[in-house]
């Protein structure tokens, strides 16, 4: 493998890993507060749709990184709004969290397609990609590292790493993080100690919504210029990353990069001469990320570190 192929591979892997990382970290906040959020997929769709529609409308008057940053804020806000419904159902109404999540997963793509066709007449929301940063000044001159991380990149990549650092710090080093984790492990004990379980869980779900919405946009920007109302199972892949990452930020980072690499191989194998030379049908390459997920989970699920109270409505009577 030549060095340039290797750089290409790493840059591509970033495009797929960073959204997985962001969304899985969101899922982590929700599950560690005690609410299972399988609506990550739908939340990504809605976040991507609303923010890309904003981009589509504004790109003639605005351009460049400011528009991307604004779109990212809109994506996060939209995701948060959708997750409010999940929070209300699972926290206030003690609904079955899987059913509520399924409803949102069903709603989001239908909403995106319906609204797109009503507003712009077609299903696809197109946008111009003016956000690629060919060279980060100074940093791209660093040997090897500069080529790997500071060429052909997007600010979203750095936002992703920023979120990782903040998420880890908040979860482990703040009083809020400790309380949130307590609500996912033993809400009755947390409640007895004076923690407002409902509030903590609301915050957990809303964070997951914001990050999933953002992740939807971050996934779309580098790899396409037309959004078609779906994110190709990425929300579910992020759930798998969360499980493989054992609900811990460091391991989630590793898991996200592993799946990102698998996805890169399946999406960009034509740009990797060694893989292309194998002559394997493209369908087989496309299966790789999904098969790898199953195989990895087969070997890592036996001892699960899932938050003990995840998926259970809080019942104060069980104290």
């Amino acid at each position, binding site marked *: 493998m030549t060095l340039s192929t290797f750089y290409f591979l790493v840059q591509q892997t970033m495009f797929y890993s960073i959204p997985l990382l962001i969304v899985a970290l969101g899922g982590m906040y929700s599950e560690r507060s005690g609410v299972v959020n*399988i609506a990550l997929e739908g939340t990504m769709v809605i976040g991507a749709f609303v923010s890309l529609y904003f981009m589509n409308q504004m790109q003639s008057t605005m351009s460049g990184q400011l528009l991307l940053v604004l779109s990212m804020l809109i994506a996060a806000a939209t995701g948060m709004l959708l997750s409010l*419904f999940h929070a209300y*159902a699972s926290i206030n*109404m*003690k*609904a*079955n969290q*899987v*059913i*509520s999540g*399924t*409803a*949102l997963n*069903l*709603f989001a*793509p*239908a*909403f995106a*397609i*319906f609204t797109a*066709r*009503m507003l712009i007449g077609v299903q696809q929301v197109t946008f111009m990609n003016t956000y690629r940063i060919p060279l980060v000044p100074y940093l791209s001159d660093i040997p090897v590292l500069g080529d790997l991380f500071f060429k052909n990149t997007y600010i979203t990549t750095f936002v992703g790493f920023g979120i990782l650092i903040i998420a880890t710090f908040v979860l482990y080093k703040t009083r809020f993080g400790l309380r949130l984790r307590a609500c996912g492990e033993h809400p009755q004990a947390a409640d007895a100690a004076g923690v407002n379980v409902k509030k903590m869980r609301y915050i957990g779900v809303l964070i997951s919504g914001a990050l999933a919405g953002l992740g939807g946009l971050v996934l779309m920007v580098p790899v396409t210029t037309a959004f078609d109302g779906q994110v190709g*199972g990425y929300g*579910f892949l992020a*759930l*798998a990353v969360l*499980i493989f990452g054992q609900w811990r930020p460091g391991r989630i980072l590793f898991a996200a990069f592993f799946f990102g690499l698998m996805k890169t191989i399946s999406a960009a194998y034509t740009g990797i001469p060694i893989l292309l030379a194998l002559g394997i*049908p493209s*369908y*087989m390459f*496309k*299966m790789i990320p*999904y*098969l790898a*997920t*199953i195989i990895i*989970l*087969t*070997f890592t*699920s*036996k001892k*699960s570190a899932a938050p003990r109270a995840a998926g259970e409505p809080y019942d104060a009577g069980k104290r």
Partner: protein
Amino acid sequence: MNVKKLLNNRSFKSVSASIIAILFGLLIGYIILLISNPAQATRGFIIILNGGFNGGLRGVGNTLHNAMPIILTGLSVGFAFKTGLFNIGASGQFILGAFAAIYIGVKWTFIPVGYLWIVALIGAMIAGGIWGAIVGVLKAFRNVNEVITSIMLNYVGMYLVNFLVVSTVFDLTRNQSLSPLNAYLPRGGLDVLFPLSSANIGIIIAIVIAVIMYIILEKTTFGFELKAVGYNREASRYAGINEKKSIIFSMMIAGALAGLGGGLLYLSDIGKHIEVVDILAAEGFNGIPVALLGLSNPIGIIFSGLFVGHMNMGGFYIQRLRFVPEVINMMISIIIYFSALSLAFKSFIENLSKKLGGRTK
């Protein structure tokens, strides 16, 4: 007194919770129509409510045909629910079943024409059953979350079927599977009842299967054991039930039901083919709302399948008014959301019955 008795009845409470959820979904759907096109909203809403009836007898026949696959995927999801598993992988099982049926229908010409469709349907059940059993085996022996595996197998199944279609039963000019000309399902007299519609014997098979599933779940020891594992794995093990076996069987049966749905839909003579595109089969996902609305009860699923089929036909007809048919999926998702809240509806009805009880005293 009688009203109080009725309100206390468990299945009445569940059914009325579903009906309240449906009313909410319809209402919000109407509001969506009003926002998107106020002038045509009421006409559009009436068209949705009329569903297949917009097309007369032909439309009703098409409703039945539309309901047929989702009754089976609904049974698949519902059966797994009853046994404590969430089968979100009906889509993959469905498309593998469809492929198996087409493959047998096209290639196994040594079987006499009159019997070929039956063999093809059995093949569809086996293919779907294997796909479902993989999920069960991983869950039983490796504790792998069945939601994740079944979703991943949806994608693997889709790409696998695309590959298999291209390499075995491919119609190159149309980029789709060949027609299983010798294995089309018989019409079973439904072409006389519903002239020019797509309805065939498939809907009858779907209903018969639903009744069989009801008998298995409610009247047999096997079904009891499966449900017991669903309620409480540890207690079932203590009672001597082999819970690993139950999980595998339950996923295998769920897969076979979805696979049969795929077989039935793709063996109809209306020109349905597997297209080689990277899109998951929607019928599998539509089984989830059908199962939830039918409260996972096989008989309930017949009705909820017909209801969703009816709504889908409404979605087809509102395109005349330039509405986008996706509004139906939005309405169904809202219905599901409200049925997730049904616990609140149930307690509302309980309160009502308490109040009434107080008054009769």
